[in-house]
């Protein structure tokens, strides 16, 4: 039977073709399909540093390719990718902790205002997001921007679901406090 073209094949089929036949076109389609979500998450985690985020996104897909046979299909492929991306972010952060720009500084030199529809709104939100811890920020982004469920977020962050709920609640509370003078009292 002739396999469907890569562009219309489901993720699971592309993964199988990539694994069994080392089909580069299939893996290329997976990258094309998921690059936007992974890069958007990493840009926000990196406080808008697009160059660093894209390096980490590239590293994410290379790691995914190397470890593709470890993907068991217990979650969506995108969830698995977000987990690799988050781990890559944490690893890079640890490695470069001293040389990474402070979040506020990174925002100042940010070159890409297009993460949200309205640039001004996006910068406000991104600035407020820097007040959160890394895990709170990741939990909020995964929940509201990437639309992951709580169990999926728990899988990405490798923590219990109760912790995810707490982090999201705490993160939202901090965001509300940071943003409310301008936005909330309407």
């Amino acid at each position, binding site marked *: 039977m002739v396999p469907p073209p890569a562009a219309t094949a489901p993720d699971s089929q592309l993964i199988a073709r990539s694994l069994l036949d*080392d089909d580069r076109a299939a893996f290329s389609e997976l990258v094309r399909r998921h690059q936007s979500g992974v*890069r*958007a998450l990493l840009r926000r985690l990196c406080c808008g540093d697009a160059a660093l985020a894209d390096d980490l996104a*590239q590293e994410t897909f290379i790691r995914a*390719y190397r*470890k593709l046979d470890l993907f068991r299909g217990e979650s969506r492929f995108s969830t698995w990718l977000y987990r690799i991306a988050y781990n890559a972010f944490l690893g890079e952060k640890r490695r470069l902790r001293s040389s990474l720009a402070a979040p506020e500084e990174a925002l100042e030199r940010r070159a890409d205002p297009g993460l949200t*529809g309205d640039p001004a709104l996006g910068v406000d*939100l991104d600035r407020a997001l820097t007040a959160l811890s890394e895990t709170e920020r990741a939990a909020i982004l995964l929940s*509201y921007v990437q639309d992951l469920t709580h169990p999926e977020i728990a899988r990405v962050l490798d923590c219990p679901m109760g912790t995810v709920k707490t982090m999201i609640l705490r993160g939202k509370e901090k965001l509300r406090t940071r943003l409310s003078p301008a936005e909330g009292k309407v």
Partner: protein
Amino acid sequence: MWAMNGNDWLERKLHQAPAAIPDDGFTERVMGALPGRRPRATLRSWIILAAAVVAFLVGYFFLHVADGVVIALQVFLSEPFSPVSVTALSILAVVLGMVVWGTVALARDEM
């Protein structure tokens, strides 16, 4: 219901979908940076199995590991918590731990 209203505006703001990031050659860069052909899972399993067999043969016939294990256990059984038995078993545990760790790392990473 201030809290509800407060959450509403915050959730609206958070839910504003970010614009999709255009590929702009990203996929090509990733594909260009991919490593060479990945070893098949079956090939990997065979390599690990062969390595384990070779390690067993070398340990058994040349390093007499089995004798060492028997002696360590004998010492432990005769004097369970003497410094000698604890030391011998600690060394044994470290060696076994290294073997297990090495095998797991080998299985998880590219060879």
